[in-house]
């Protein structure tokens, strides 16, 4: 992939921080092609918490890689703050699905969190403070000098989240970050994401295949169809801002929303695209 480092201006709808227009991605595989994403368009305003939910293999990771400038789309474009994304933008931090492979095993927890800041030229003292604050935010203030492989899966994903927080991004992008941790840890981490979103005022894009998770976390849920992928539905979640694992999930609205999303996904799987926005 050509790794262009410049970002050129483009027009967006006013008010949108992130703007995805007719994004398509077709992988060239050997002599053939795999159409992972047909055409996706949506806007995200600054400060939103958007969950993107879709069945496995529908192109969620592909979409995130295009959003974060790691992969060039084959059609359409992504713009962040009016700048077309052609390379990983300064204002974006990514938390990957494979936390075990995304932390540097030869670096201590604090050096893992600090490396992106070092790359940005943040001086030592300031860096240490930011790193410590970020690790305390995720409840790992005691594990500064540990190595990632000495930690449990949930704690490793916390380190990855701390690294993203310390980077002070405007947009935080997370790719099924909790798919591989146990249920209790997962609930804790979900609440952590809500807290980080509220505390830092950062825009969050959270990808998941878990319908309940998308409704519990999001202020808005984008339902993707199965491959070749389009946006099946753009749903706003009118649950109270203060969410609680037990009482929120027991609300009738919650049940309604999750049933609705579930139906949409079932329709998407059947390839029923009737009534889709053009």
């Amino acid at each position, binding site marked *: 992939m050509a790794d262009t480092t410049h970002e050129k201006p483009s027009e967006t709808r006013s008010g949108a921080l992130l703007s995805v227009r007719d994004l398509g991605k077709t992988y060239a595989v050997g002599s053939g092609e795999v159409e992972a994403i047909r055409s996706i368009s949506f806007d995200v305003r600054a400060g939103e918490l958007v969950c993107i939910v879709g069945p496995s293999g529908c192109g969620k990771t592909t979409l995130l*890689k295009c959003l*974060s*400038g*790691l992969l060039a789309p084959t059609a359409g474009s992504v713009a962040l703050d009016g700048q077309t994304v052609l390379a*990983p933008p*300064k204002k*974006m*931090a*990514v938390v*990957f699905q*494979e936390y075990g*492979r*995304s932390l*540097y*095993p*030869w*670096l201590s927890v604090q050096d893992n969190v600090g*490396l*992106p800041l*070092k*790359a*940005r030229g943040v001086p030592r003292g300031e860096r240490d403070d930011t790193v410590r604050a970020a690790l305390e935010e995720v*409840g790992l203030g005691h*594990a500064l000098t*540990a*190595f990632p*492989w*000495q*930690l*449990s899966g*949930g*704690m490793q994903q916390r380190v990855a989240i701390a*690294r993203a927080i310390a*980077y002070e991004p405007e947009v935080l992008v997370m790719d099924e970050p909790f798919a591989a941790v146990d249920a*209790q*840890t997962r609930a*804790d981490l979900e609440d952590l994401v809500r807290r980080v979103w509220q505390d830092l005022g950062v825009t969050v894009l959270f990808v998941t295949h878990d319908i309940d998770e998308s409704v519990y976390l999001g202020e808005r849920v984008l339902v993707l169809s199965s491959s070749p992928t389009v946006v099946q539905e753009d749903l706003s979640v009118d649950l109270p801002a203060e969410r609680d694992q037990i009482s929120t999930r027991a609300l009738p609205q919650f049940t309604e929303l999750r049933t609705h999303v579930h139906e949409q996904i079932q329709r998407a799987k059947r390839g029923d695209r009737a009534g889709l926005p053009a």
Partner: protein
Amino acid sequence: MTQTPTRTPRTRRPSLAGTLRAVGYAAGLPALALLAWVLATDRSASLYFPSPTTIASTFAATWFGPALTTDVLPSLGRFAIGVLLSIVIGVVAGTAIGTTRWLRDLLEPMLEFFRAVPPVVLVPVLMLMLGVGDSMRIAVIVSGCVWPVLLNTVEGVRGVDTVLTETSRSYRVRGLLSLRSVVLPAASPQIMAGIRLCLSIGLILMVISEMFASSSGLGYRIVYFQRSFMIAQMWSGIVLLGLVGVAVATLYGFAERRVLHWYHGMREVARG
């Protein structure tokens, strides 16, 4: 919190009994072999297999005299320079080749060819080019030792996990910092394996390089003793080479434990 607490890798402090047992295992077989040798050579007075006691008494007289400064130290010096040069050249060139696509496509077939050429056959060529001095001997060592380091570095640098590479890209960790903090550490297990090979090949080539057109050095001395029928001295030279080999391996072990502490720790945790 419900997370499992921080798991520290087991660094059991060895007990005295444990240490003794380890030493027993390590030294047991050599001791037995030595005993067998003593018993075998005690009765027969074989010309070619002097008894260990004879060799031991010859050892000090042969190597702790002027031979130390005229033969042993210069040999070890050439070995050290040759190996260090190989490591530097191998890691630098290997990193360049491993990270640059066109360089790799250009050089890979040629590297395989050079690696396949036994370094010993280069001795006459290098003698023509560099004369018969130290530089020729160091060049012989390098000509055989760079390959394992270089090829392992290329492999290691290319094999960096794609998730790690994408993480670095998305956080804009680039250039020298990426090289120092990501690429080289990620490749270090393979680079260290290359260095280990480099050391053993280096020792062999140190000896061989001194067997041609030479008048000093450990390899030269051993051949000289053999031709002069100074059999006990010859054997003491072989023992000395063995000891050097053990010392080099021990030094390597220390270095490896320092450089790859994370790697061994990670594997120990993965094994549970």
